[in-house]
């Protein structure tokens, strides 16, 4: 399950000889790395925003959040294969993932609202095991590639030797669009107002007569759908493999911890920091790449234990 680290970026990175050839190549090389880092950060934001909302509003620590990412990716792999079309597959996978999220909330998480974090951790740990085994039963334990749609499968050639895949740009743009919509929903709608109120004072929202159960279901379903959607659009570049959810989960934890629990803005900034730190860690410190993001987290925590945008704890 752990044999595979994130495979992102391997195919678009030019051979090392290109790097040393000239200043212009250096610049484009770093430009490509920055784009990769941002694109990874955007994906992380989609996963981490759900995680941070679910904790901030519902008080639930959900280890199974990474499983939604995995489920999204596998649903995409399966449905794109079945329908033969990337867009149709995606269209079918999105409502299914929302459904999975709502079911998990109603049948599982709903029992945990008044329980200690310890039990939430254990329960959702059990959920991870169940989801992993279900995945193994339904789709096996192999790594599968997912084809990007033909229209997005080309590359932009920045120099003679260095190119940037169109699909990665597409991911970034879609993520920015989703983040924008999320921002508008949270800042400008009545639902968003309730969500913000819930994040800052849950009891008061309840006392004011808001249907908290409904709110919780919406927030959880939204979070699950965002994570699953991230998995879907990431599938063509990362391929789908067992353990993909756990990797993303733990990195998302790091993002949430850096940004501050409950803060969407924090999740965004944290995701950008981690996306770039991870990418440049791989470039400059290939031997210790896995350690870099955690070191960044440790530094942020020493400086601000509550995270960048968290409330004091």
């Amino acid at each position, binding site marked *: 399950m752990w044999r595979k680290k994130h495979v992102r970026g391997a195919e678009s990175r030019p051979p090392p000889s290109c790097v040393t050839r000239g200043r212009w190549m250096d610049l484009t090389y770093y430009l490509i790395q920055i784009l990769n880092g941002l694109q990874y950060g955007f994906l992380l934001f989609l996963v981490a925003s759900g995680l941070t909302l679910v904790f901030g509003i519902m008080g639930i620590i959900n280890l199974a959040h990474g499983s939604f990412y995995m489920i999204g990716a596998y649903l995409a792999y399966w449905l794109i294969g079945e329908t033969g079309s990337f867009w149709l597959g995606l269209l079918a996978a999105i409502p299914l993932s929302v459904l999975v999220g709502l079911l998990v909330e109603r049948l599982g998480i709903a029992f945990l609202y008044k329980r200690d*974090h*310890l039990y939430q951790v254990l329960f959702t740990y059990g959920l991870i095991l*169940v989801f992993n085994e279900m995945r193994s039963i339904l789709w096996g334990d192999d790594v599968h590639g997912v084809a990007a749609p033909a229209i997005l499968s080309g590359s932009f050639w920045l120099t003679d030797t260095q190119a940037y895949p169109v699909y990665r740009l597409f991911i970034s743009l879609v993520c920015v669009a989703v983040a924008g919509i999320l921002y508008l929903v949270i800042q400008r709608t009545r639902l968003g107002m309730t969500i913000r109120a819930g994040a800052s004072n849950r009891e008061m929202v309840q006392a004011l007569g808001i249907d908290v159960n409904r709110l919780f279901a919406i927030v959880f379903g939204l979070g699950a759908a965002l994570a699953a959607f991230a998995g879907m659009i990431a599938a063509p570049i990362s391929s789908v493999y067992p353990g993909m959810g756990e990797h993303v989960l*733990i990195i998302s934890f790091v993002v949430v911890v850096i940004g501050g629990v409950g803060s969407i803005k924090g999740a965004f900034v944290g995701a950008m920091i981690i996306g770039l730190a991870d990418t440049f860690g791989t470039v400059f410190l290939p031997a*210790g790449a*896995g350690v870099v993001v955690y070191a960044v987290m440790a530094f942020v925590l020493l400086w601000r234990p509550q995270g960048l945008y968290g409330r004091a704890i």
Partner: protein
Amino acid sequence: MPTLSRPVAALLVLGLLGLMVFPAFGDTFYIRLVTKIMVLAVFAMSLDLLVGYTGLVSLGHAAFFGIGGYVAGVLINKGDVTSILALVPAAMAASALVAAIIGWISIRTTGIYFIMITLALAQMVYYFFHDIDFWGGADGINIYSRPLLAFGETVLLDLSDRVSMYYFTLGVMVAVFLLLSVFLRAPFGRTIVGIRLNEGRMTALGYDVRHYKLAAFIIAGTIAGLAGFLEASRAVYMNPAHVSWHESGLVLVIVLLGGMGTLYGPILGAFVLVLLEDFVAGITDRWLLVMGLFVICMVLFLPNGIGGLINRLVRPRSRSDKQAAAGAGSVGVADG
């Protein structure tokens, strides 16, 4: 520290006697299996000190387990050190050092932050072992020889003998149990239980809560390192999976299954979980699915674990006892 009720103490003594005579009857497979269980029990007891007594839910405890094992393994392979007298202190010291660093960072936070941060920092330890070739990388290391205890030419204890390994592990388990009992009866133990029950009040009473938490964290990490040493001696193999967060989750399950806030709980939990795994393995190879469902059911229906169940069965009478059982580890304060 809970004063053990008489029936529980009697059961524990019986269990200990059973474990002492077991190698005379059990076949090789089960001697090995029980050794493995006892290693896990030591590991789980160390976590219980954090989760059940101090109230710190750590999701990164496998880091210290792995460090103990890796340090012992590398000393054997690359340093040709085989003496238990050198390996045990080295493994424990390495774990204690890292526990001090990780503890120092994570103790500054509470609740959900603490859970996430211990997980993330343990993951950093995971990648440290996973990415660096010195530690065997993703494949881990095969340990070439087993630790032994010798004076001059006379070998007193050779852990390559499975029965010696068994009794050594049993001895360590009992020693850790007794040591932690003493710790928990001492003012230190009262203080950390107090921190779990009401941190604000302990602070108001003038206790430096952070120091106590950090001390508990380091002690727990050190004992986990000892368990890691046992694991390396037992399995003669260490790989990054020993440090992974699945291992941390597993040991948390064991603590809760047995009943947190009791020292016998983790031992009981280790036995039940591993024997269940052994049993399920005969039926299906989907053990993880069974375990996942089992954990979910446990959280829903058996929140105080088997220890809580036993407590309820052996003293069903008085109301305060029931409350104490419901609070698992808080028994000690009532008995105080």
